[in-house]
């Protein structure tokens, strides 16, 4: 219960800090916001003084900082994120649409990475120094070293263009998930395979493991009864950290695969000084981070009650 309260306080602090930080950063960027917003709305062929003046008049830009910030917090308490300065649509609706796309992509990527990485890591960890272990070290180091941008292009060229198995880009159907999710998943799997491998090797060297084998359990039985639960603790803990990598990766992957997600939205909002949109997306990402970590803390406690002291 106290843990939950602590998390709530943490979430509130995150909201306040993100609100202030994004607001101050957006205000202190060089250049006139009305011009930037007008360029975002009407494009480079049509942005001119008349458009910038119309934007300035419509939005009442350039007012004092503090009232605007307090206004934003006030609206936030009523769960009102305001309207996008560029599209005029409610920020809440845009984020809901785009966050949904990002979250589904991220979830598929995490599941895919968990299907690829840990099983291979466990197999390698069971025979440390074996062929699979050495091969996995090379492959995972290699995969981790490849930038996601390059990985995405390689996958598109090989799987979409050469083999024609899957679409190169786009969204809306199940088949569009595979390549972007795989791009993200390979990077994640490269690391969690190593985590699983190290955890497995460590646990396989422990006395209780040998004891389980002595009492006559098969390798499979030992792994399923005594191994998996132990391995999942470092794996889950690391998953929380990987959330950052995931958000970072989603921004790049979304732009390459034309995915209408929150990373895409954030980049565009920053370019065109869409302050409510930047604040909204940053807030959602920040709170998402708190939520993911809280969920992982909770799960780890359930898996390993010893730490709950």
């Amino acid at each position, binding site marked *: 219960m106290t843990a939950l309260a602590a998390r709530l306080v943490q979430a509130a602090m995150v909201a306040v800090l993100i609100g202030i930080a994004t607001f101050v950063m957006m205000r202190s960027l060089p250049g006139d916001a009305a011009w930037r917003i007008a360029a975002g709305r009407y494009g*480079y062929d049509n942005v*001119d003084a008349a458009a910038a003046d119309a934007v300035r008049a419509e939005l009442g830009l350039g007012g004092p900082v503090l009232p605007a910030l307090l206004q934003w917090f006030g609206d936030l308490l009523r769960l009102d994120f305001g309207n996008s300065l560029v*599209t005029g*649509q409610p920020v809440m609706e845009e984020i809901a649409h785009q966050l949904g796309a990002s979250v589904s992509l991220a979830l598929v990527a995490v599941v895919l990475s968990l299907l690829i990485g840990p099983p291979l890591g466990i197999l390698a960890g069971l025979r440390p120094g074996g062929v699979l272990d050495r091969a996995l070290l090379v492959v995972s180091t290699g995969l981790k070293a490849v930038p996601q941008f390059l990985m995405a292009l390689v996958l598109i060229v090989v799987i979409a263009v050469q083999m024609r198995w899957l679409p*190169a*880009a786009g969204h809306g159907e*199940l088949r569009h998930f595979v390549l972007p999710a795989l791009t993200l998943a390979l990077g994640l799997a490269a690391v969690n395979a190593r985590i699983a491998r190290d955890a497995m090797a460590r646990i396989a060297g422990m006395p209780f493991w040998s004891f389980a084998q002595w009492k006559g359990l098969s390798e499979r039985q030992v792994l399923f009864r005594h191994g998996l639960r132990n391995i999942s603790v470092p794996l889950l803990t690391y998953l929380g950290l990987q959330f950052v990598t995931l958000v970072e990766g989603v921004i790049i992957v979304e732009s390459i695969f*034309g995915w*209408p997600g929150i990373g895409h939205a954030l980049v565009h909002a920053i370019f065109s000084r869409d302050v409510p949109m930047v604040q909204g997306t940053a807030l959602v990402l920040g709170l998402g981070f708190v939520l993911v970590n809280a969920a992982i803390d909770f799960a780890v406690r359930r898996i390993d009650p010893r730490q709950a002291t």
Partner: protein
Amino acid sequence: MIKTFVSTVAAIALLAAPALAQADTTLDVVAQFEIQAPEPSTSGYIFTRMGIAETLVNADAEGRLTPGLATEWAMSQDGLSWTFTLREDVVFHDGTPMTSETVVNALEIARAKPGPLAGLPIIGISAGEGELTIALSEPLAALPAFLAEYRSQILAPASYGPDGAGVQIIGTGPYRITDLQPPLSLDATAFEGYWGAAPQIADVSYSGVSRVETRALMAESGEAEFVFGLDPASVSRLGMVEGTEVLSVAIPRTLLIKVNAGHPFLSEPAARRALSLAIDRAGIATAVLRYPEGATQLFPPSVEGWHDESLTPLSYDVAQAREILAGLGWQEGADGILTRDGERFALTLTTYPDRPELPLVAAVLEQQFRAIGVELTINTTNSSEIPAGHQDGSLDLGLLARNFGLIPDPIGTVLGDYVGNGDWGAMNWSNDTFATLVRGIARGEGGVAERAEAAAILQADLPIIPIAWYRQTLAVSDRVEGATIDPFERSFGLQDMRWAE
């Protein structure tokens, strides 16, 4: 254990396979543009290109005006009023008829938003029986061309909210929207009640994909049948790919340098001519843009009437450029940069990355200007910095791509850029002869000779320095036939395409 793992993966793959297979009867269009909102003033060009919304006036491939939702139009004797006869039996996608009142409503809303209509000398728009009349405070011969621009699209009254902001797109075009998901996608299907010939391909979709590499790969993999806006590198590769054809056409868009003619270094026309002589246009065109040739004057050949074959072409001559600058009192300093009265010939070139070729060309220009002793600092920033710098006078040079065909008659752009405030045109430059000529052309006086004379003044005075004429390229799958490419970028021409036998 390994066996279990392999068989699990195989099972997942098998289960997933049917879901991944596709039965595709939709024509997929991919371009770089994002749909912001169902709002004609910002994203209207996507709706007109996709054949969803229409304008009163259309333009053919040569820029000649053709009937759209208006069948004919005429100017009054004094030139102060235009009457447009509306097409009969046109219905909007929601089933309501297009009447003169609905057209006036759409135009009045468009006129209240930033755009070309806002700057016109329109006194009032009134609805008549099957026609509408636009009253002007001064003659404007090019008015019909302004009504061909995408922001003048005619939508049903239910398309607009109480404040005039777009809430949905209910047009009159051959396709009606079935699903609109900003910012990246739109699905549409043939509209049964269309007044013209029914489209041959019933279902179309639009996807916004901002990365040009991705778009090219989507064309190459056959994922999209119609891929718009390719970069030079992709064009040469896609040209060799089976199953894809690359179409290319010269468009009325020019790559140019906007010059602050009020800058102490650039106020003499001779100084601007020296900068122009320093530019190796053929080199930039072939190496960066992969076009056969650079620009020889501001207006590309596709801008009929304004392009003048007999005009002395802009040339490349470093020695002559140096000579001119020496004549203006510039002397080479120790580091090779010119100085005059203790001031270095150093300028900032502002450009924007929205068009990926601009920063590349800027880098080449830095080298070419250095060869005549002019130091360039490149500032790649938001596109709005150019008009903003124009307004506050801080701009030195701006590298930009200017479209003369947004309004099919270039007079609108010429008037705005070189006589009006000129956010994207001349800066601190005015020429009375030019202004008189252009205002006359706008009123409808003057023909080819006057246009050529105006173009010659720009060529001699160089308030802007032209560099290259653009080409638009797109890739079409051989699964479809009848694709064309519109130099005025008004339509993708989907309604004339059909599936290949």
